[in-house]
């Protein structure tokens, strides 16, 4: 009896199943978070803004806030529940969805290949193209769960008498909200075919995201540049305008691009070697074992492995500082500055003008730096889980020396990025009177959350290495969400104090909050010390 085709189908189904199983689990959590945020925003709108006057005030304050528009996109019809849900939650989830998509795709495709598991699957009755296609289907299953949970939450919340979204509007909103996730799943999958390690794939996909985001940010950050939104796929999603003025054609563009990227991914998978990347270059290699520039110590190795990551972060944050400086300066010139005054006042600052804008925007840079610090702690764990650390510690390197070297690199990343952000912001504000000293104070300010995350992250890494990175990312995300939504909606200091960013003022629009900064730094130093002791006393553990 011939069973060939059915066995081949089963083999391919295994690839889909394995990928889907790992993609769906986190998608469920993200879908629940998306749903909860949407439902919360829709259902509490009327209680938060009970009168038409309060809604108009909200729309007047935030609808013309160009800094916020640059970050999460411009708002439309902000005096209605449609407009608020379509702006605040939507803008945030586009970013989060894209990041989830690129991380999930690179982990589940190139990550599997790095670990050697992909070869096992390819050894079955399948081909590289078919396996790549099936992996994309598995990733698609993860996206479907994210979309379904978002759609259900939006539809249920929308059916409330106080909200009133139609089913069609809800489904379109869910599709637009999760479109960035689908797009960057495809971007991540293609990057995994082009590069030869997960780290490189993640870097390429992140660079693609950063480029799309920066173009969209510039388009939304300055008057007259709205057309630039069509140069960025994230701008297309923004132009879909769910709930306020739906434009399905914009989403169709995203669907077409996603399809093209997926098809390219499958095609590249067919002609590249397994284990190699399509863009891998053959370089002249120094074959002498003892040559100049070889890493010769744990610190040297840390520099060798992380130098491009550190330099890329420092350069990227510096570039972001320039953009934020330009945006702040433009907003000031356009007389939008008065609208940010209230927001800045809620954060402990005063006045309006470019200083208020740059101070507000730099809090987002602080969140990004805290995320980068969390990623550095994650890389410590990855180094240990991969078994690389054994080779150093079984020789004459000590645990503390290795940890100190890696933390020194991470501190350089945070402080270096803070300095370049300050210099970039100052350069961007060149027509403003904001001095370099004021911007350097802003640089000190934004380094604090990153340093805190490094300290607490070291403690978590010493005690519970597997959970350190997820806990840190959760802390940063929570801080970001509270910073965006919390300060305007509640004055409950117990809630606000749990977020890192609320301990910072919008420097240079406010003075440095030395007391809070000192406390955060002391906690970070003590936590790092305790973490080093805990790391010294525990077993090294694998993945």
């Amino acid at each position: 009896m011939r069973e060939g085709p059915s066995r081949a189908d089963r083999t391919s189904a295994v690839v889909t199943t394995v990928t889907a199983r790992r993609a769906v689990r986190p998608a469920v959590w993200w879908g629940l978070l998306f749903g909860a945020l949407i439902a919360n925003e829709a259902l509490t709108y009327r209680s938060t803004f009970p009168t038409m006057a309060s809604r108009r005030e909200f729309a007047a304050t935030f609808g013309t806030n160009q800094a916020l528009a640059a970050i999460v996109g411009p708002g439309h019809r902000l005096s209605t529940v449609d407009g608020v849900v379509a702006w605040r939650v939507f803008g945030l989830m586009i970013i989060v969805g894209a990041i989830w998509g690129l991380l999930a795709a690179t982990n589940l495709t190139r990550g599997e290949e790095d670990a050697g598991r992909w070869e096992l699957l390819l050894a079955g009755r399948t081909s590289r193209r078919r396996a790549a296609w099936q992996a994309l289907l598995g990733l698609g299953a993860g996206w479907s769960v994210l979309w379904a949970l978002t759609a259900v939450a939006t539809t249920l919340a929308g059916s409330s008498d106080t909200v009133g979204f139609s089913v069609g509007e809800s489904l379109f909103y869910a599709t637009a909200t999760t479109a960035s996730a689908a797009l960057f799943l495809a971007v991540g999958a293609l990057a995994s075919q082009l590069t030869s390690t997960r780290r490189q794939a993640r870097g390429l996909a992140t660079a693609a995201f950063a480029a799309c985001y920066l173009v969209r940010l510039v388009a939304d950050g300055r008057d007259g540049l709205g057309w630039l939104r069509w140069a960025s796929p994230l701008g297309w999603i923004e132009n879909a305008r769910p709930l306020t003025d739906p434009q399905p054609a914009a989403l169709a563009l995203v669907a077409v691009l996603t399809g093209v990227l997926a098809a390219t991914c499958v095609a590249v998978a067919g002609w590249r070697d397994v284990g190699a990347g399509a863009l891998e270059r053959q370089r002249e290699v120094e074959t002498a074992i003892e040559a100049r520039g070889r890493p010769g110590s744990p610190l040297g190795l840390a520099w060798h492995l992380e130098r491009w990551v550190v330099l890329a972060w420092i350069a990227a944050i510096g570039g972001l500082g320039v953009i934020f400086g330009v945006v702040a300066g433009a907003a000031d010139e356009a007389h939008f500055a008065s609208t940010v005054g209230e927001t800045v006042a809620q954060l402990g600052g005063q006045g309006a003008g470019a200083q208020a804008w740059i101070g507000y925007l730099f809090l987002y840079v602080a969140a990004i730096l805290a995320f980068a610090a969390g990623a550095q702690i994650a890389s410590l764990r990855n180094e240990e889980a991969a078994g690389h650390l054994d080779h150093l510690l079984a020789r004459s390197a000590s645990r503390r020396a290795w940890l100190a070297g890696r933390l020194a690199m991470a501190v350089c990343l945070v402080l270096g990025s803070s300095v370049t952000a300050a210099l970039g912001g100052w350069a961007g504000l060149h027509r403003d009177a904001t001095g370099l000293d004021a911007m350097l104070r802003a640089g000190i300010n934004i380094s604090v959350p990153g340093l805190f995350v490094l300290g607490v992250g070291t403690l978590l890494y010493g005690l519970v290495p597997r959970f350190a990175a997820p806990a840190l990312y959760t802390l940063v995300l929570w801080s970001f969400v509270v910073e965006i939504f919390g300060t305007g909606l509640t004055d409950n200091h117990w809630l606000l104090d749990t977020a890192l960013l609320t301990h910072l003022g919008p420097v240079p629009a406010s003075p440095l909050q030395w007391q809070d900064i000192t406390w955060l730094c002391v906690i970070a130093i003590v936590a790092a010390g305790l973490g080093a002791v805990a790391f010294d006393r525990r077993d090294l553990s694998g993945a």
Partner: protein
Amino acid sequence: MVPAIRTSGLTKSFGGNVALHPLDLEVAAGEVVGYLGPNGAGKTTTIRCLLGLARATGGTAELFGVDAQARPARAHGRVAYVPGEANLWPGMTGAQTLSLLGRVQGSVDAAYRAELVERFRLDPSKKVRAYSKGNRQKVLLVAALSSRADLLILDEPTTGLDPLMEQVFRDCVADARHRGQAVFLSSHILSEVEALSDRVAILRAGELVEVGTLAQLRHLSALSVDATFDSDPPDLSRVAGVVRAEVHDNQVHCQVVGSVEPLLGVLAASGVHQLLSREPSLEELFLAHYGADGQGRESAHA
């Protein structure tokens, strides 16, 4: 003379699971000791405790008299290690890796390293990610052997090596022994251990069950015999020295402890058609002498 390795009551538990029962073991300087046991017996756990990579639950572990748990970096000063899993930095070349490991080691015989690269036929210009499993293992072997460390701790070091390279490895270990280096060789390949070791220690389920020279452990060895007969086979279970005789049609598989003469006598008189004898695998040895229920050893000795 200070022993290269000395453990006293060394214990390791993971939660409620005892991975290593109190272990008392000594390896003299210049001695090659084979550390045998099936998968999961606790060999790697022992080595990780010896190196301070895992924290012992109890007892002490010393390398050349230095407490490896309290002062691991100092204890490693005279030690080189080859793990069973060759997980190296994929983005680095073999040359970069050898350079790094040599510098972190603190001592390296560069001429000998160059010779080892030749002997193992290693291309150091390639990136680690492009290496086969065997080539990654070669990088670690070259790094460890070229350190000329006083103690080599090798955890299943020939994983992935082809037979030719395995022979090169054996020659290198023999060279190390002649130079007076101690070697602690963890393996589940009996022939490798037999060929290289002065003494053998056998671990089972985290407990040290035998330690001694190969001559002292002869009572453990049994010959595995497969005999095919022209007609129904005779009853071999009563023949002196025969244990675990299993009959399948006209074939018999059995193991012989001690002299094979009584068995040969019976076979010669019974129309044996084909006779195949071989050294038992470690698995067979353990089943014969340390059955899962703990009764095997007594029956074998009876």
